């Protein structure tokens, strides 16, 4: 008996555990491996355990050899204890080989993108679940399969709300450290504050000047300072312009029981066109598909045949019955050019939720996913790897909802460790959020009049024009602001402030996205086309761009614009109204001068619109792009330049015929 214990102990050191509690013994008639019937009768052999219980055929094995080695050990021990005969051992071993157990390995990949520092539930939007609910969901998925990787496709940080942004996004890095994510491919917003700051996110150390840096909980700090990311930033296509070496590793490899999966991380090649030039100084952004394809031979030489691309570039899906039936956008061309060795593409940037197939360079469909934005979704991906070829044989994916906790009587489960981080920074942010950044003479609301214009929209567009008007900063003559980017009103009176003051917290709440400004050139004809896209054929409802002072036009849109359309109006909109032209020809003017179809104009929008967000695809055709300030900084500068306080505008820029 002692010898047996010893033998088991020795084997336990050499091989995966063979011990079982056998609370619910397997009582099948014959011993089975997977679904394969060994032909050996199943019976109780050890305590409550049957022979079947002692074989771990249900668990993950890194190779067929690993499972058969386990079966060999267990069957030898049973034979030695005279629980099975030599003939039965031979049968069991033949079955272990024939069963195919261990010939494939299931790995779970949990993907997300465009997290943008939304660690606090409901910050910026009541749809944002916060990182505590997000982490709970991730751990729920992880519990389904211990062989997993949690990966981000960029914009993990940057354009983040107050609770993360105020502390230089260190809260988000610390939260992700606690979740123990594996990799984050850089996105354009990772470059918002430049290379040095991005490297600090990886390597740690406090910000050289910002006093809000290094304020984390003791458990998250290292030597009393910001610790940096425990996960790896990846950037295969971002190189130093002088040395052509990547600023971060291009590839992260995770080993699953001897089966290696490579994650190639990249941002969009056109990152410099949507990031402030100072953020990408000295860096070159290379073609996405070419970069991946060049890495494939290197990976194969290392015996790696399972390759996942994490790319901060995306598209827009067409749904049919809830299932993806088509894709548009920059990701399509990239995937069309990918080497067939690429097994999966986890994408981002467009903040869309999709789960589509796009053909690779061999014309074979590749799974391409994106999990929306702001921690609201996770992509749950099961990847089956052939343990002999080490290549992926099948992939299934689904986007799942991360629930938003209730403000009272919450029943959504939260991860306590992550909530601790959020509560810590939320408390620290209370004082800076009250910093006064400007004055207003009355409440300025985002409520639109029936022509589609709001006072707050006017104010934001004016601030954006002011920031990009000077020579060298864009020389803009018009600014357009998307209405969905204005998240709250600016109240004249509120608890905890002097009437008329605008606090930093309030400004942040109005524009929580931290978009940067982009100035681009459009022709007059494109400006007309842009305005017609407010009720274009792809719009789910009319979206009225807010316009800067000096710009004016008249339209004849036939439905109300001072409120949301009701259901009946919505049907009318989608069936017979949208897609038609309503801008009155000749009415579009800048400072009273009619816009000419063939003349070029410098136009400022935020980076979201510049990428064609909210289906304003005309803006994607804008040329001579120049990145600018973050939108809230532009707003604060505008307040500073208006010491007497800003008054609500007269709503006279957009008129209805």
């Amino acid at each position: 008996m002692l010898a047996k214990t010893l033998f088991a102990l020795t084997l336990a050191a050499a091989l995966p555990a063979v011990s079982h509690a056998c609370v619910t013994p397997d009582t099948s008639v014959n011993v089975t491996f997977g679904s394969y019937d060994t032909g050996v009768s199943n019976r109780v052999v050890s305590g409550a355990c049957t022979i079947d219980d002692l074989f771990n055929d249900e668990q993950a094995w890194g190779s067929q050899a690993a499972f058969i080695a386990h079966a060999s050990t267990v069957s030898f021990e049973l034979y030695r204890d005279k629980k099975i005969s030599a003939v039965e051992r031979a049968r069991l071993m033949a079955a272990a080989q024939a069963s195919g157990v261990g010939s494939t390995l299931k790995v779970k990949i949990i993907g997300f993108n465009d997290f943008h520092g939304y660690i606090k539930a409901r910050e910026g939007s009541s749809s944002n679940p916060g990182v505590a609910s997000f982490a709970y969901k991730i751990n729920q998925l992880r519990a389904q399969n211990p062989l997993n990787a949690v990966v981000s496709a960029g914009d993990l940080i940057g354009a983040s709300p107050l609770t993360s942004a105020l502390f230089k996004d260190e809260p988000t890095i610390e939260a992700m450290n606690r979740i123990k994510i594996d990799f984050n491919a850089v996105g354009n917003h990772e470059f918002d504050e430049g290379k040095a700051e991005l490297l600090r996110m990886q390597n740690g150390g406090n910000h050289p000047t910002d006093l809000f840096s290094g304020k984390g909980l003791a458990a998250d700090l290292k030597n009393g300072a910001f610790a940096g990311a425990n996960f790896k930033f990846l950037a295969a296509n971002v190189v130093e312009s002088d040395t052509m070496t990547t600023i971060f590793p291009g590839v992260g490899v995770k080993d699953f029981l001897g089966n290696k999966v490579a994650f190639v991380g990249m941002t969009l090649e056109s990152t410099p066109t949507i990031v402030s030039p100072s953020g990408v100084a000295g860096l070159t952004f290379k073609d996405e598909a070419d970069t991946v394809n060049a890495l494939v031979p290197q990976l194969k030489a290392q015996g790696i045949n399972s390759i996942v691309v994490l790319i901060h570039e995306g598209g827009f899906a067409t749904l049919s019955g809830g299932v993806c039936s088509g894709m548009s956008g920059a990701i399509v061309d990239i995937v069309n050019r990918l080497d067939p060795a690429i097994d999966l593409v986890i994408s981002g940037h467009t903040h869309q939720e999709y789960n589509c197939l796009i053909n690779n360079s061999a014309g074979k469909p590749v799974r391409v996913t994106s999990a929306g934005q702001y921690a609201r979704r996770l992509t749950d991906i099961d990847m089956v790897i052939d343990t002999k070829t080490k290549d992926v044989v099948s992939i299934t994916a689904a986007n799942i909802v991360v629930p938003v906790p209730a403000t009272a009587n919450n029943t959504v489960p939260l991860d306590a460790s992550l909530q601790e981080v959020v509560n810590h920074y939320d408390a620290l942010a209370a004082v800076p959020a009250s910093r006064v950044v400007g004055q207003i003479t009355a409440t300025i609301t985002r409520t639109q009049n029936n022509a589609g214009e709001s006072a707050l929209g006017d104010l934001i567009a004016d601030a954006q024009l002011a920031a990009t008007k000077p020579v060298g900063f864009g020389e803009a003559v018009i600014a357009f602001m998307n209405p969905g980017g204005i998240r709250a009103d600016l109240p004249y009176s509120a608890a905890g402030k002097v009437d008329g003051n605008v606090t930093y917290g309030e400004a942040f709440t109005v524009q929580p996205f931290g978009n940067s400004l982009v100035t681009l050139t459009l022709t007059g004809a494109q400006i007309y086309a842009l305005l017609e896209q407010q009720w274009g054929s792809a719009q789910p409802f009319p979206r009225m761009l807010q316009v800067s002072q000096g710009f004016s036009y008249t339209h004849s849109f036939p439905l109300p614009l001072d409120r949301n359309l009701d259901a009946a109006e919505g049907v009318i909109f989608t069936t017979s109204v949208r897609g038609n032209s309503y801008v009155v020809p000749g009415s579009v003017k800048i400072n009273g001068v009619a816009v000419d179809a063939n003349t070029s104009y410098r136009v400022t929008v935020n980076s979201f619109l510049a990428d064609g967000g909210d289906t304003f695809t005309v803006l994607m055709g804008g040329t001579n792009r120049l990145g600018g300030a973050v939108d809230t900084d532009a707003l604060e500068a505008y307040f500073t330049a208006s010491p007497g306080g800003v008054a609500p505008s007269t709503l006279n820029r957009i008129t209805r015929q």
Partner: protein
Amino acid sequence: MNQTILFKLLGATAVALCCSVAQAARLEVVDHLAAGGYIASTIGGEFFSDDAIDLSAGGDVGLIGTHSFDAAGLSHGYVADAYFIGNNQSYAMSITQYLTAAAGKDLLAEAFVSVPLITLNIASEGEALGSPVQVSFNGLASALGLSSNSTLQMDIAITSGSTTLGSWLWAPDAASSPDAPVSFSFLANVGQQITLSAFMHSTLGGTGSQAVDGSVAGMLGGNFAVAAVPEASNYAMLLAGLGILGLMTRRRV
């Protein structure tokens, strides 16, 4: 098994457990050769054979042969397998042979696994290339069912070029203890390539004059651990430290 041997075995296992935690490097399969199978024949001229199948993939070596030959009055077969599993740094091999023969059936059968080489690279897990490491193998061997009708032998060795770094050989008989600890260790360097070779062979036969119903089986299994070897200067510091402690103790006395 007496208590002394048991404690030794437990100690060996504890070492294996301890040192697998503090891995300085790990063994990675570079290449391998493996074969195995079964041959049996009767005086009457019947001949039986089977070849093992190589299931090796990636970082794992796996070889398995198993077959049952069933006929009226003569039933026999075998399992012969060998594995190096990279994930848990284990090597194991086993044979089980059985024979049921009616009187008058004279069969001699042999089974074997032969792993003439598994080339292993001592891959760094943080240690610099060329750093000295101690590689150890600890496990257990078993021999079951040996009788005057059967034989069993097994060996495992690690070589580097023509130098044998560590080896273990066992040819048990019916009088042997069914279990024997397997343990050896040697010094090597991170980045060095070493060769594991192993062999197991068994025979089982009937007398022909009377019915036979028997089996013979062997197993050898254990795991490798690679531990960092402190630099000579570290030893010196350790000794100096111990010396100071010794002086302090003496002065207190």
